[in-house]
C-alpha cells in the first residue's frame, strides 16, 4: 500500500495503537493486581482472579512491537 504516494503503511499505525493500549492495559492490570494483594477489595468483574488485563496487555505490547518494527516508516517493503 502507498506505493505511488509512499504513505506510511496502516499496519504501522495499528502497531502504535496496540503498543499504547498494551502499556495502558498492562499498567492498569498490574496496579489492580498489586492492590488486590494488599486488600480484599470487591471486584465487579467475574474471573478477576485470572488477571486478564495483565496478559492481554502483554499480548498487545508484543503485537504492537512486531507491527511497529515490521512496518516502521522508512523500511523498504518487499
Amino acid at each position, binding site marked *: 500500500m502507498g506505493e505511488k504516494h509512499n*504513505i506510511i503503511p496502516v499496519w504501522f499505525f495499528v502497531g502504535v495503537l496496540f503498543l499504547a493500549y498494551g502499556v*495502558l492495559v498492562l499498567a492498569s492490570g498490574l496496579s489492580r493486581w498489586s492492590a488486590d494483594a494488599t486488600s480484599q477489595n470487591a471486584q465487579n468483574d467475574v474471573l478477576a482472579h485470572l488477571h486478564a488485563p495483565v496478559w*492481554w496487555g502483554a499480548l498487545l505490547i508484543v503485537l504492537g512491537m512486531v507491527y511497529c518494527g515490521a512496518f516502521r516508516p522508512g523500511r523498504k517493503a518487499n
Partner: protein
Amino acid sequence: MTAILGMLAAREHLVRLSAVDLAIVIFYFALVLGIGFYLKRFAKTGEDFFLAGREMTAWVAGLAFVSANLGSLELLGWAGNAYQYGILAAHWYWIGAIPAMVLLGLVMMPFYYISKTHSVPGYLQLRYGPAASGLSAVTFAFMTILMSGVNMYAMALVMKVVLGWDINFSMWVSSLTVGVYVAAGGLFSAIFNEVLQFFLIWFGALLIPILGLYETGGWSGMVARIQQNFPGQDFTHMWGPMHSFSSNPMGIHWTGIVFGLAAVQSMGYWTTDFLVVQRVLSAKDIRSAKMAPIIGSFFKMAVPLIVILPGLLGLAVLPMHLVPNSPHLPPGQHSFDEVLPLMLVRYCGPGLLGLGITALVAGFMAGMAGNVSAFATVWTYDLYRPFIKKDATDKHYVSMGRWCTIIGLFVSIGTAYLAMRSESLMDWVQNLFGFFIAPLFGTVLLGMLWKRVTSAGGFLGLLSGTATSITLFFLMKSDPKWVAIFALSPEAKGLAQAMYQSLWSCTTCVVVTILVTLVTKPKPDQELRGLVYSLTDVAQEEHASLFHKPVFWGMLALVLLVILQIIFW
C-alpha cells in the same frame, strides 16, 4: 431501532469509566485525527480522494471491506439477536455473507474494476445510461445520509445508557472528528480508520468469548447451562429448527434463509451496496480487487466468535433474563440489545473496559466515515458531474467532495435530531435501505451476464423491483393477512418478512427486465466491451500457482462455510 430507544428509559448507566479507560478513548480520537492530517497531503486528485489512489493491497481493501459492515450497532444488534434467536443469527454472517463475497470477488469485481468506474451507480451509467444510474444514485445518496444520521443518534443513545454521556456531546464530538479526518484524507482516511477499527473491535471484544467459555467450561458446558436456563428451547442449532415456521423463535423457514437471505438479500448488499464495494475499488490491481472480498470472507466467517457467541454466552451466564426491547423498561431490567455491554462489564475491569468501549466508539465513527465518504463520491461523480457541472477540473471535483463530506455530516446531524423527536422516522429509515438493494442486485447481475439487456429493461426492472419492495413492506405492516401470503406463513416475524420481501422484489426486477428487454433494442457490442461477461477479457491467472489464484481461496471459503453448517446443523 425501538430497541435502542428502549434503552433511553431513565436508568442508571451500566458502566463507570476509570481514568485509564478515558485515556484509551482519548488516545483513539487523537490518533485518528493525527492520521487524517497526515493523509491530507496525499489526497490531491479525484482518484486519491474518492478511491484512495487505487493503491490499496488486497489485505487492506479486504479488511476495510468487511470492517465497513462491522459497525457498533451491528455488533450490539446481532449480539442481541443471538440472545433472542440463538445461533440462527449466525446465518447472516455465514450463508448470508460468504457466497455473496465470493461471487463479488470472482464474478462481479472484474467488471467494476475493468470499467474503471468510481461507483456502482457509475457502472449503471456505463451499462444502462443516465436513467438507471440517476435512480440508483439518488436513492443511495439520500438513504446513506439518512442512515448516517439515524445511526449517529442511535449510537449517542447507547453511549448515554452505557456510559452516561450527554447525547449532544457524543453526536457533535464524534461527527466533527469524522468530518475533519474524512474531509482531509478522503477515502484514504476512511480506510485507515476502518482497518484500525477492525483490530480494535477484535481485541476489545475477543476476551468476552474466551473468558465466557472458560467460565462455562467450554461449548458443551455453555449448551448445558442454556438448556438449564431455557428448558425446551433450541438455541444452538442452525438448520434443524427451520423445518417449519413455528419450530424456531425467528419464525422463519429454511427457504427464507436460502432463497431470501442467501440468494437475494445478501447478494444485493455485498455486491451492489456502494458503501462496501467502494473499499474494493480502491485495490491496486485486478488480482487484489478479486482477492479483497475473498480475504474479507474469511474474517467475516470468524466474526460470530465476537458477536454471536457473546449472545449465546449471555443466555448461559447472565443472572437475569433479558427482555424484548421496549421504551418502558422498568429499573433493573435489560433489553436483548444490551447483552454485549452486559457481557463486557461482566468480564472486563478497568483498562479492558476502555478498550471495549473504544471499540464501540471506533465502530460507530468508522461507520459514519464510510457513509459520508460513499455519499461524497456518489454525489460528486454520479449526480453533480453528469447532471449539474459536466466539464469542471479534477481539482474542482475534489473540492466538491470535501464540501460534500462536511455538508453530509451536518445533514446527518440534522437527521439525528429529527430522529430524536420521531421514533417512527428511525424505523422507516432502517427499512428504507432494504427497499433498493435487492432489485439493484438483479439489475447489476443481469447487466453483467447478459449483453442483450437494454437500457429501458434495466431502468424499468429496477424501478418495478423497488416499487414491489415498498408495496410489500407497507402491505405486510398494514395487515397480517398479507404476511401469510407474501412471507408464506402468518408466523413469519420481521426478519423473515424482510427475506421474502427481498425475494419477490428481486424476482419482479428480473422478470420485468427480461420482458422489457425482449421488446426493446439492445446496445451495440462495442459500447458494452469491459462491461459484460461475453465481451470482456478477464485475466484468469492461468499461469499463477494455485495459492495465487483467487478462485482457489474462494472455493476454500465455500468449503469452510459448508463445514461450519455441518458442525452446527
